[in-house]
């Protein structure tokens, strides 16, 4: 029984067919690279999985049971988390504050509840250690490097014990050295049994860290193979349409 199964997922916005008949399955700990040119449907597919909007046709199953997401919080409740391209971090808050944003632990009861700083700092520290990141919980995000900011964004997904993390272009706008840190973070997640969908334009990144690569073109899935069985040239051909399917 797969962690996540998509059967015949289609999505249209009025006259625009964004996704057509996408079938996909994901096992725990698998890293899947989701590739395709602009407008191929990668983001739409990710948003359907993350609960931003429901599919027009098809069904989604988690652990074999059908699920329907009305909003992203529903998906989060089922263990699906998203790390957005801009990371969705507040620069003026600490790393720990960002990790717990929206889900702060509190002490006390009724209207007299105060923030539980001790728990937040301790737990954030643990999460950063698990991800083997040097990020310190009390530091302001404003003063952090790109890799550290990624660690904060990823640590946030660990809070709810996410089982599937969707990462949207995590290495797009950071330096070469920091790319290595991010790819390592993805490997850590995979080691913990968490499935990762990595949306990326960058071939070397996908081939270095993903077990499988899924290629989208014009809303359809045109390839779904293991990375050892494929090559950057083949994937490029699939993305541009030089190769029809694989």
């Amino acid at each position, binding site marked *: 029984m797969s962690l996540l199964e998509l059967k015949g997922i289609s999505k249209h916005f009025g006259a625009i067919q964004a996704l057509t008949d996408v079938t996909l399955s994901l096992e725990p700990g698998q890293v899947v690279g989701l590739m395709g040119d602009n407008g191929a449907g990668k983001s739409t597919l990710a948003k359907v999985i993350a609960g931003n909007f429901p599919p027009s046709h098809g069904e989604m199953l988690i652990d074999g049971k059908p699920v329907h997401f009305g909003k*992203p*919080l529903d998906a989060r409740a089922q263990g699906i988390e998203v790390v*957005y391209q*801009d*990371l*969705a*971090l*507040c*620069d*003026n*808050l600490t790393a720990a*504050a960002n990790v717990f*944003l*929206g*889900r*702060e632990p*509190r002490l006390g009861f009724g209207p007299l*509840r*105060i*923030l539980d700083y001790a728990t937040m700092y301790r737990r954030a520290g643990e999460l950063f250690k698990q991800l*083997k*990141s*040097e990020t*310190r919980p009390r530091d302001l995000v*404003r*003063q952090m*490097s790109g890799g550290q900011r990624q660690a904060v964004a990823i640590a*946030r997904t660990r809070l709810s014990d996410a089982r599937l993390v969707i990462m949207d272009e995590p290495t797009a706008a950071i330096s070469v*050295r920091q790319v*290595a*840190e991010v*790819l*390592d973070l993805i490997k850590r997640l995979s080691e913990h049994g968490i499935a990762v969908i990595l949306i990326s334009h960058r071939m070397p990144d996908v081939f270095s860290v993903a077990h499988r690569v899924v290629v989208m073109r014009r809303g359809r899935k045109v390839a779904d193979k293991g990375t050892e069985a494929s090559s950057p040239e083949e994937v490029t051909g699939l993305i541009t349409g030089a190769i029809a399917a694989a």
Partner: protein
Amino acid sequence: MNDPPERPSPISRLLDEPQAEKSHTRWTGLLASQVFWVVLATIVGCIVLSFVTSTFATQQNIFNVTRNFAFVAIVALGMMAVIVTGGIDISVGSTIGISGIVLSVVMNAGYSIWAGIGMGLLTAGLVGLVNGLLIAYLDMQPFVVTLGMLSVGRSLALVFSGSRTIFDFGPDGSQLLALGGGSTFGVANPVWFLVVLAVLFWFAFRWTRWGRYVFAVGGNRHAANLTGVPVRRIICSVYVLGGLMAGVAAILEVGWLGAVTTGLGTGDELRVIAATVIGGTNLVGGVGSAFGTVVGAALIEVIRNSLILLGVDAFWQGTVVGSFIIIAVLFNRLGGERQGN
């Protein structure tokens, strides 16, 4: 021969490198803090004035100075929350006016002080609510909405007061005068209110979820939205709070003045915003402190007081205060360059 030691993989070596040094030591951090300079300026100002004039360090003058800045500081606390979320509220002057006039009209008609205070605060809260609903739920621009309410508030104040000056506050009038104009243990009552409110605000910002959300909304509204922070509710709440603070200041000020004219509160919004900005709150949002705001208000009042005691023409006050605002924003801007990376 021993085997060569195993090389750590390139990736883990990158992660093992020492973290980038902090950009500030404790002392440079202090010097870069705007609040530190404002506190220093205020203290230096007070000390210099004590020596240069014979009247500054008298009990009466200190009493006056602290009471005057208390009114501005109370409103500035609410304004700070608004500005931290990235908004602005230029209607507070009118809110003080309409709130004070409702209080006066109610008490003048013979009702108790509690009825007067209740109606005054209700009026102030309603103005804040209108601001908050339009800004938070209809996504209207704060400046425009509060500009409209500035006009509406001032006009309604004229309507309610019938354009007369009220100095008779009915049966409970003496209680009102004691509240705003009296003192407890030698400290003016408004100052006590300020102290309590400042502590409450400080506590709320540091220890409650609401306080953290106010800063999150100001820091990155989009991120706050994505993580489930109730952004619209938070934004609405700070405008309501701003209105209420204006109401509190109005009630105390009316008690102190002993009479209410239709011009009550006119122009106060600029003094309040000045105090907030000088106190270290960034107009862009996400940065500010309750303590800084109070000190900012104190500095402005010390400046005004010093000009009066030194015999400088009162018309120069605007120039001096305005210059301080510009210096404060410049300081903020220069300090911000270092933090940006």
